[in-house]
């Protein structure tokens, strides 16, 4: 959709070319705005595949929690929200939602909802939540335009915005219905970077203050704000080291740290972490360094060079001594804490093997795994090849802004290599640099075609017929070379910022003379343009395919296509609806933590553990229960006041991500806290097998029994379609649980704990086994409310 926009832009540019620079400039502005509008529409509408192919529904797991929080916010108001203690989850501990949630997304959607409703537009909270992510991806592509424009001009900006609007990596997190923090956070991230670069270019305190606010929004939205608060100091440090210190750098950085840290501390979930954890330490260190450097520059201006040298030697000797002492104290302080002041997720970023060694719960989440090479190709596609070209073009010439982009790219490549989820942070960087690369390439190629044929009829017509993309950039080239200085001055006078004229001017001080040297022969440049257009076309095709096929499934409703039409597997909602309507309001439902958020949001029942995995012991308790034999499991669940147990079973229809496949994590996490669960007992030849080779412990554990209860009677053999073999233990009875509901395709099975048996006369009740006692003890220890 961006392409037609550019073609209109090109024709418009041609018209305007006749009648003076001023009109053409105005037309260019209008067309640029129009192109941006269409890019926004593209970004929004490419994310609607999920609504069209499936329905307008919240997706997956975490979005259900956010949706529930938004519902609460819209119903009870902001003050109730801050004080919300949620007693429907982590039973019996509960969770303080207001203090443990990043409120940015919720507040954003809540505000949109409130605004619409005060205009008497009766959209439901759900609808607003579903469409928040597409709206914010349109915003993100506009922010990308601004950021790229700051460093490489509007042409690159438009290109980058169009690329970002449909980059699959970002689509995967922001399709309609994917109501997650990242949806708004990526916008906030790019916008914060834009404002930082803008401040760096202009030296305006106004933008610095805006930058702090934007950073505040980012802190509200996502834990990934630590990326900003480390990346910007790194860039500042880079600038200082490369001798690019200026007052603009100071203005860009110092207010951000002071205001930003103060504002960040206002967010309950961050609070004093903003000054106390190691993630923020680098920013303060650089803050100090920046001041030292500023002082040095100031003194350098005051003193004569000779005196300055003396002062330097003096200060360095004293300063170093002091620094060592301070550093030693700091190191000692930090080292005294077991995790060195870093949170588990951050540590696993620095040391990719950390999580799998120490925190199975982080390792158990698939999006915390390192990505594979195909996933790079899937998620950023041709951008992976264009990025190096973008880096090169950032170095010609290197400005503060372009060095920032390069630094952003390099760090995000590292992070995306550690965790597949952080591919999302890489995507904007890759888009910006590819946009720059493409824009520069088109620039060079079209320019050489134009200079080859001074009449330019031939060249422009082939280019025009070849693709709409090229003329856009030839137009840009016109404005850039011929009216560049005028454009710049116009922009500046309208924005009343004189200062960035010099910075912009420095980045674009290439007159026509230099450009003539870069002329390529006509044939190869036409070929190059064609190839680039084909590349862009491939990218667009891939993005649309990814948006339509790969990333639009809501995962709560599954479909499969067979020769006799479309099959819909709506078992999850069937089970949740059953729970919600046919059980008592205060009943507790135990399931593996994956389904916690959905159970609370869709079934409105109290759960034991959920996807906010804050209490490892509690999760381990559930894991232990699932991997224990029936009686022991019943005792654990009964001690937790559980009435229903929910398991997800894919063996009948072949749904692979079911509880048997997640079972290894239950054993691992359970065994990590309760040592009587030994992983080796469940393993046969290093595999979790549930066929006749399975270990007796495995075939007697609760999870196996609940999944396969009476399964053999469906086909007489008990053939599990996920594992691809017949199950090991076929006929068995449940003694402590009874089946109360199984969904249509058997994907969700709900069991009820049988009531406690009457005491038989003369038979003493056995003392609770050491196992349950240890659990009691540990939960009691962890539970401040009991």
């Amino acid at each position, binding site marked *: 959709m961006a392409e037609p926009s550019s073609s209109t832009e090109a024709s418009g540019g041609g018209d305007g070319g006749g009648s003076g620079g001023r009109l053409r400039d105005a037309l260019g502005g209008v067309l640029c705005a129009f192109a941006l509008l269409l890019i926004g529409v593209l970004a929004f509408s490419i994310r609607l595949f999920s609504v069209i192919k499936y329905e307008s529904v919240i997706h997956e797991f975490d979005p259900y929690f956010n949706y529930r929080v938004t519902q609460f916010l819209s119903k009870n108001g902001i003050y109730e929200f801050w004080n919300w203690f949620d007693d429907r989850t982590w039973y019996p501990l509960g969770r303080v939602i207001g203090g443990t949630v990043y409120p940015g997304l919720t507040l954003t959607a809540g505000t949109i909802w409130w605004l619409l409703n005060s205009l008497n537009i*009766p959209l439901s909270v759900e609808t607003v939540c579903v469409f928040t992510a597409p709206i914010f991806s349109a915003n993100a592509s506009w922010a990308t335009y601004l950021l790229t424009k700051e460093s490489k001009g509007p042409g690159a900006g438009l290109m980058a915005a169009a690329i970002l609007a449909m980059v699959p990596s970002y689509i995967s997190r922001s399709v309609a219905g994917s109501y997650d923090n990242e949806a708004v956070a990526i916008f906030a991230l790019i916008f914060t970077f834009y404002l930082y670069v803008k401040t760096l270019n202009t030296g305006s305190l106004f933008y610095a203050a805006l930058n702090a606010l934007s950073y505040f929004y980012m802190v509200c939205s996502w834990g990934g704000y630590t990326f900003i608060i480390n990346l910007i100091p790194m860039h500042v440090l880079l600038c200082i080291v490369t001798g690019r210190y200026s007052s603009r750098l100071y203005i860009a950085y110092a207010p951000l740290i002071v205001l930003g840290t103060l504002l960040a501390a206002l967010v309950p979930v961050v609070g004093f972490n903003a000054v106390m954890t190691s993630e923020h330490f680098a920013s303060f260190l650089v803050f100090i360094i920046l001041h030292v450097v500023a002082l040095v520059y100031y003194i350098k201006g005051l003193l004569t060079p000779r005196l300055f040298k003396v002062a330097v030697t003096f200060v360095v000797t004293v300063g170093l001594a002091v620094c060592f002492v301070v550093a030693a104290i700091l190191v000692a302080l930090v080292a005294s804490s077991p995790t060195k002041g870093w949170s588990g997720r951050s540590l696993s970023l620095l040391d990719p093997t950390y999580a799998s060694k120490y925190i199975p719960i982080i390792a158990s989440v698939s999006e915390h795994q390192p990505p594979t090479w195909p996933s790079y190709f899937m998620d950023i596609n041709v951008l992976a090849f264009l990025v190096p070209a973008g880096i090169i073009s950032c170095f010609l010439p290197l400005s503060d802004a372009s060095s920032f982009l390069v630094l952003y790219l390099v760090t995000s490549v590292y992070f995306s290599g550690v965790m597949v989820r952080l591919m999302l942070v890489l995507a904007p960087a890759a888009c910006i640099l590819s946009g720059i690369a493409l824009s520069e390439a088109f620039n060079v190629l079209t320019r050489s075609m134009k200079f080859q044929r001074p009449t330019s009829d031939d060249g422009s017509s082939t280019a025009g017929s070849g693709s709409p993309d090229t003329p856009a950039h030839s137009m840009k080239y016109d404005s850039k070379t011929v009216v560049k200085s005028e454009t710049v001055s116009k922009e500046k006078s309208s924005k009343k910022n004189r200062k960035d004229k010099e910075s912009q001017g420095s980045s674009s001080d290439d007159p026509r003379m230099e450009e003539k040297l870069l002329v390529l022969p006509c044939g190869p440049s036409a070929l190059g343009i064609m190839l680039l257009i084909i590349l862009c076309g491939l990218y667009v095709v891939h993005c649309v395919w990814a948006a339509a096929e790969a990333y639009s499934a809501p995962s709560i409703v599954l479909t499969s296509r067979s020769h006799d039409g479309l099959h*819909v597997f709506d078992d999850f*909602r069937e089970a949740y*609806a059953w729970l919600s*309507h046919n059980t008592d309001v205060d009943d507790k439902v135990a399931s593996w933590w994956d389904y916690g958020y959905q159970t609370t949001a869709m079934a409105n029942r109290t759960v034991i553990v959920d996807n906010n995995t804050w209490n490892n012991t509690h999760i381990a308790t559930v894991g232990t229960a699932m991997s224990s034999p029936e009686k022991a499991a019943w005792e654990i669940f009964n001690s937790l006041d559980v009435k229903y147990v929910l398991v997800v079973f894919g063996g009948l229809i072949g749904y692979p991500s079911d509880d048997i496949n997640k079972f290894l994590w239950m054993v691992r996490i359970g065994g990590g806290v309760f040592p009587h669960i030994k992983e080796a007992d469940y393993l046969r030849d290093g595999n979790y097998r549930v066929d006749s080779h399975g270990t007796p412990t495995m075939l007697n554990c609760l999870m196996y029994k609940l999944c396969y209860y009476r399964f053999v009677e469906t086909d007489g053999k008990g053939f599990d379609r996920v594992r691809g073999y017949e199950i090991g233990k076929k006929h068995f009875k449940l003694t402590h649980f009874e089946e109360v509901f199984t969904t249509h395709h058997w994907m969700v099975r709900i069991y009820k704990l049988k009531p406690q048996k009457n005491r038989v006369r003369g038979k003493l009740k056995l003392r609770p086994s050491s196992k349950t006692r240890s659990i009691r003890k540990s939960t009691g220890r962890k539970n401040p409310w009991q």
Partner: protein
Amino acid sequence: MPPSRPTPIVLLLLFALTAVSSSPLPPEDGIRVVSAEKRIDLTGPIVKVFLTLKVENAPGASDASQVLLAFTPTEVEHLAILKATRAEGKRKKKAYVPLSVEASDLAATPNGARLYSVLLSTPLKPGEKTTIEVLYVLTHTLEPFPAEIGQSESQLVYFRDSAVLLSPYHCLEQVTYIKMPSNRIESFTRVDPTSRAGTELKYGIYSNQMPNTYLPILVHYENNRPFAVVEELARKVEISHWGNVQITEQYKLKHGGARHKGVFSRLEYQSRPSMSGMSSFKNLLARLPPRVHSVYYRDEIGNISSSHLRTDSHKSELEIEPRYPLFGGWHCTFTIGYGLPLQDFVFESDDGRRYINLTFGCPLLDTVVDDLTIKVVLPEGSKNPQPSVPFETEQHIEMSYSYLDVVGRTTVVLKKKNVVGEHNVPFQVHYEFNPIFMLAEPMMLISAVFLFFVACIAYLHMDLSIRKSL
């Protein structure tokens, strides 16, 4: 299984009634029932009674303008609808004239029995005979026994009534037929002469019954028909004069039969459908008007994919399946919404007023609605709404606000309890509407956009800086 529990109550009632009926009643205006035939239809979850009364005014009495019908207090409580017609004319030109029925508060009724009077269109002259056909429907009168059943058991219910017609009049000849859904009748009270033929029970012929005679009977039989009870139904009708009538119906459905007990095994349910869950139901049929469009069926957690819509030129049928089969005592909620073309439902009357003509009641077939609310949201700017419903409803008017409303939309709210299929009759809401109001919202939007651009222009042409730019 012989019923043990209700017997004392029945006996007591019998005793009390006979005791009272022996006391002399103030003579009604000479009417007596020559012959009465009562046909009770027990095949569904509701009780339908067709009553044919041949009444005669005594030669010596004055003109009778009404005929009284008597109901026990329990029946009155569960009475959903009561309709009467009078057969007029001779064989060939026989026509049924609907008669109006109203609750009568004549004091002299024994044991709290309530009287309803059927108002005759032309008074019955002394010595004249006429035939009155009465239809009434009772809901929630079938009591499941046992009250809790397992998955494989079938549902048995009790039905209680009187063998003879409860009537304030002297009854010369009377017979009662009870029709069952199946052959399986566990037990029934015998009041001779009583006979059973297949699925039908016949009580009578009884002759010369005194007024207010009540002979309780109890029938215990199998009824596996879906006991679909809509506990609450809120229908919202939104009229847009741009061409659409949007209807949204929110259902709270319950299986009102014997409660499900113990396990629910999907395996049993799927592999032996005839043996398991006989009283449960998994689909319902809604009959919608023809030319219905944009139909949706969802609940609070999203779309429900199991529904089918069949349309033809006379009607549309929407077959819906709740997310899970409903067993006794299970609940579910869902919403059905659809749009209808405006010209099929909104008309202009001769005096320039407009009216919407809709069907009352619930579009789901074979259901009982405990609590029905119909909200007719008239377009913004409508005045003087006047609903006209052929039976008694609770009515009030409120304001509702929707897309960009400023003054709000007048909303007519109609409420009725205990609604059955017989209530699906047309009703109208008359209102005044000036088409100029249709343009209000577009104009508002246009002016908003216009003002926005004016503001933009003004901003671009103003220099808001403190310092003059150099």
